[in-house]
C-alpha cells in the first residue's frame, strides 16, 4: 500500500489551474523530488499533501486513509518551508522540542528525543541560541531536526536548500538524503534545480503547468525522457529540427537543414515527418578523426567554456547549426581552440527523436 496517494487532484486559483488531475503514489521510505519551473504547481501540490490547502477535486490518501478535510496536525506529515519558519521567539531547543511538547509526550521522552536529534544534526552545543543567531546552514538543520523530532513519518520539503549559497547547497544535498534515509522517513522534496533532484531522489516527478510530465527514477528521466520539455529541463541537450528521410530496420535517417543526414536508432516514424532530434551535450565528442558507428559532422569550434570541472565546446557545423559538447576535464585528451576545425561525433543510439511540437520548438525548451 502506498504511503501517500493522490487521485485526480485538481486545484484552481481563479482562472488559473494550478494542478490538473494529478495522480501519484509515493511508497513508504521513498525520497521523491517534485521538479519543475516556477509556477508549475509544485508548492501547491506539497501544500495539498500537508493539508494546508484543500484540493478542488480529487482525493488525497495517507496510509490508505482518505484525508480530505483532515486538518494538518492529524496527517503525520511535517512541512518544511524554504524560509524554515523557525519560531523566532523560541530557542533551538524549544523549536526542536515543539512537536513533542505540543503532543504532550512525557518529559523524559521529550528530553531524550530532542537531545538525540540535536546531537544528530550537530547542534547540541547551540541549543540555547535563538534562530537569528545561527547561520543559514544551521537554521536549515534546526528546521529539519524540528520536523524529525515531531515524530512525523512524512517530510514535505519546499525548496529546503533554496535559501543557501550555491556551493553549500551542493554539500548539503547528500547530507539531507542520508538523514532522511537513516531515519526511515518518506520525503517529498520540491525543487527547480534538476541537478539537485537527480542526485537526491529515488524517484523524480516532473511537473509542468499543473500536469505531471513524467515520473521515473533519476536514471530513467535522464536517459529516457518522454518529451522535449523533459529533455531540455533535465540535463539539457542539443535540439535540431529535421525530416525523417529513411526508415530502416535498425533505425532511421533524419535529414537536417542543409541536407545533412544523421542516423538515429529510433524506428517507427513515417518518412517525411517533421521531427526534433535531441542529443545530450555529454554524448557528443569532439575530435579530429571520425568515430566509426557514430554520426560524424565537420565543424569549427565556436567557443570554449569551462563549467564545473567540464569543458564545453560549442561547434558550428557546416550547415550553420550549432552543437555543444561537454566533456569532463579529466576525460579530455586535449583541448581545442576557438576556430579549430573538428569533427563532432555522437552515436545513433544516443539520439532522441520527438515529433515536432505544435507550439514550436522554442516554447518547449526556452526557460526565460
Amino acid at each position, binding site marked *: 500500500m502506498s504511503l501517500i496517494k493522490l487521485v485526480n487532484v485538481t486545484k484552481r486559483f481563479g482562472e488559473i489551474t494550478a494542478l490538473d488531475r494529478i495522480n501519484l503514489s509515493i511508497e513508504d521510505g521513498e525520497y521523491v523530488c517534485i521538479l519543475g519551473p516556477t509556477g508549475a504547481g509544485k508548492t501547491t501540490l506539497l501544500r495539498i499533501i500537508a493539508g494546508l490547502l484543500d484540493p478542488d477535486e480529487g482525493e488525497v490518501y495517507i496510509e490508505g486513509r482518505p484525508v480530505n478535510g483532515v486538518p494538518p496536525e492529524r496527517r503525520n506529515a*511535517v512541512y518544511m518551508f524554504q524560509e524554515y519558519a523557525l519560531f523566532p521567539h523560541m530557542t533551538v531547543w524549544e523549536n526542536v522540542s515543539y512537536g513533542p511538547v505540543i503532543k504532550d509526550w512525557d518529559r523524559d521522552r521529550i528530553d531524550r528525543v530532542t537531545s538525540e536529534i540535536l546531537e544528530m544534526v550537530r547542534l547540541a552545543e547551540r541549543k540555547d541560541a535563538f534562530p537569528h543567531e545561527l547561520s543559514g546552514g544551521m537554521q536549515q538543520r534546526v528546521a529539519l531536526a524540528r520536523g524529525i523530532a515531531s*515524530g512525523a513519518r512524512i517530510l514535505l520539503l519546499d525548496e529546503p536548500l533554496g535559501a543557501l549559497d550555491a556551493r553549500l547547497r551542493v554539500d548539503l544535498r547528500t547530507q539531507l538524503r542520508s538523514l532522511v534515509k537513516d531515519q526511515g522517513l518518506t520525503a517529498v522534496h520540491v525543487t527547480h534545480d534538476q541537478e539537485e533532484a537527480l542526485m537526491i531522489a529515488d524517484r523524480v516527478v516532473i511537473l509542468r503547468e499543473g500536469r505531471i510530465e513524467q515520473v521515473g527514477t533519476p536514471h530513467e528521466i535522464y536517459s529516457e525522457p518522454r518529451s522535449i520539455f523533459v529533455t531540455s529541463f533535465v540535463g539539457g541537450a542539443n535540439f535540431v529540427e529535421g525530416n525523417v528521410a529513411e526508415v530502416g530496420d535498425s533505425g532511421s535517417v533524419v535529414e537536417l537543414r542543409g541536407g545533412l543526414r544523421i542516423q538515429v536508432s529510433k524506428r517507427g516514424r513515417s518518412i517525411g515527418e517533421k521531427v526534433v532530434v535531441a542529443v545530450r551535450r555529454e554524448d557528443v565528442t569532439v575530435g579530429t578523426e571520425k568515430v566509426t558507428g557514430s554520426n560524424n559532422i565537420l565543424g569549427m569550434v565556436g567557443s570554449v567554456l569551462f563549467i564545473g570541472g567540464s569543458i564545453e565546446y560549442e561547434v558550428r557545423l557546416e550547415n550553420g547549426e550549432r552543437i555543444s559538447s561537454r566533456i569532463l576535464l579529466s576525460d579530455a585528451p586535449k583541448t581545442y581552440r576557438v576556430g579549430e576545425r573538428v569533427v563532432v561525433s555522437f552515436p545513433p543510439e544516443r539520439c532522441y527523436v520527438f515529433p515536432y511540437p505544435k507550439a514550436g520548438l522554442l516554447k518547449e525548451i526556452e526557460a526565460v
Partner: protein
Amino acid sequence: MVSKARKPLDLSNLVVWATLGAFFTLVLLPTFYLISYVFLRWNEVRVEVFENPIIGDENWRQILKVLFFSFRLSLSAVAFDLIFGVPLAYILARKSFPGRTLLEDIVTLPLVIPTSGFGFSTLITWTTVAGIGGFLGLNSGLISLNALIPIINVPFILFVVHVALTFPYVVRTLETKFQSIDVTFELASRTLGASSLTTFRNILLPLAIPGVLSGAVLAFARSLGETGATLIVSGVSTTASIAIVRWASEFKLATASFMGSLLVMIAWAIILPVEVYVGQRGRSLKVPYRMPRALHDRLIKFERFASKRLSRIKDVVPLAVVLTTVVIPIIVVLNSVIRYWSADPYTGKVQGGVLYQLFGPSNYFNSLLRATLTSIIVALASTYISMCLAVPLAFIIERRWYGRIIRTILKVPMIIPTSSLGLSVLLLWGPGGFNLAHPGIWLIILTHIVFSVPVIVESIIAAYEGSGLQMYEDSARTLGATPYNAIETVSLPLLKGGVLTGFILSFTRSLGETGATFIVMGRDVTIPALVVNMVEALAISAALFTSTYLIVLSLILLALIRLLTRRR
C-alpha cells in the same frame, strides 16, 4: 504559489459572531445613530436650525461659517504638514544618525500628550509674557491670541497647535511607507544618472503616494476633530468641533447633532474615496508625468544643483518646525511651573502661584486627584474592553474573506471628529436614547471604546503583516499543533509587541481625549477636561501644574512604548 484561499483557522463561529456583534453595537452604531437621528427628528432640526421663530436661519448661517473656517484651518495645516513632513519622514526612514530615535520620539510626542495640556503649553509660549515674549524682554506675549495669518485668515496660534498635533500623523505614516520601499529602486535611479532630488521626485514620491494620502487623511481627520487644545487656544474663533461641544452644553441638541452629522458626512465624502484608493495593493502614480522639454531639463539641472548644495536646508527646516512647535512649548511649561511655584514672578502675588491655587480655597489639588482617578479608571476600563474586542477582530480581518470590508469600515470611527462622536454616544446610550447611562464615567467609557478599538486593531494588524505569521502557524500545524495551540504558542507570542503597543496607544489616547469626553462626562471630570476648566477659570498656575503633570505622565508612557517596540 501562495494562496489566500486556504481554509481559515477554526475561530469558532460563536466567537466570530459575538465579536462582530459587539463591534457593530459598540463601535459603529453610535455614528449611524447620529445621522439617523437627524432624519428621524427632522422637524425639530428644521425648526431650530432653519426656521427659528426668534433668530430665523441664524443657526444655519453659523454652521456654514464654522464649517468653512474649520476646513480652511485643517486644509492649510495638512498642506504645511506635507511640505515639511515629507523631508523629515525621508530623513527618519533613510538616514542613520545619532539621536535618530530621540527625534522620532519628539515627533511622536504630540500624539501622546493630552492635547489640552499641549494646547495650554503653546498658548503660554506664544501669547504670554511667560513664554518667548518674556524671554525676548517684551512685556507681553510675542503674538496676540487672535492675530491672523494673512491669506488663509486663520489665527496664528490655532494654526501652530493644529500643525503640531497633526504633524506626527504625516511624518510617521510616511516614514513607515518610505521604509517599506526597497532602497535599491533609489540606488538604481542614482546609478542611471539621476541626482538624489530627481530620484526623489521620479521614484520615491510616486511609489509613496499611498503613504502621502493616508498620512494626509489621518492628519486632516485629526485636525477636523481636534477639541482639547482648540478649546484653549481658539480665542474668538470657533471650529466645528468646539461649536458642537458648545451647543451640546447649551442643550441645543438638534443643532449640534445636525452639525455633527454634517461634519461626519463631509469628512467621509472626502476621506473614504481616498482610503479606498489607498487600500488597493500596489498603488502608485503610474506615468512619469510629462512636461515641456526645456522645463524638464532646467528642473533636472536645478535638482542636481540642489542635491549637492542645498541638502542642508531640507535637513534643517523640518527640524526647526519640530523644535518650535513641540519642543519649545514643553520647555516653556516646565520652566514656568518652577517660576510660578510659590508666586506670580511678575506681580509677586501669592494667589498667582502654583501652591496657592492647588491648595488654596479653590483646592484644585483635590479636583486633580479626583480627575486622575476618573481618567485612569476610564482609560483602563475602555482599553480593556476594547482589547477583548480588538484581538479577535484583528484575526477576523486577517483570516476571513470579508476581512478587508471590516477593515475599511474600521476607518469610519477613526475619521469621525471626536465631538461628533461624543454627541452620538450621548444621543444613543444617554437619557434621550436607550437610557443606558447618564453623562458620567460609564458614558465616557462607552465613548472611548469607539476610538480605542480601531487603534488597537491597527497596531495588531501592523505587527501581523510582515511577520509571516501564516507560515509560522502552518508550520506549527504540521508539527502537530491544533489551531488553538498554534494561536497560543506561536501567533500571540509573535504578536505580543503589537498587542502591547496597541494597549498603550489606546491608553494614552483615552487619557488625553477631550472633545468627546467633554460632551459625555457630566460631573466626572477627566484630567484634560480639568485643564480646560482651569483655563476658563483663569487658574493659570494650576493649569501649568496639571499640564506638566500630563506631560510627565505621557513621557513615561512613551518610554514604555519604546521599550516594548525595541525588542523586535
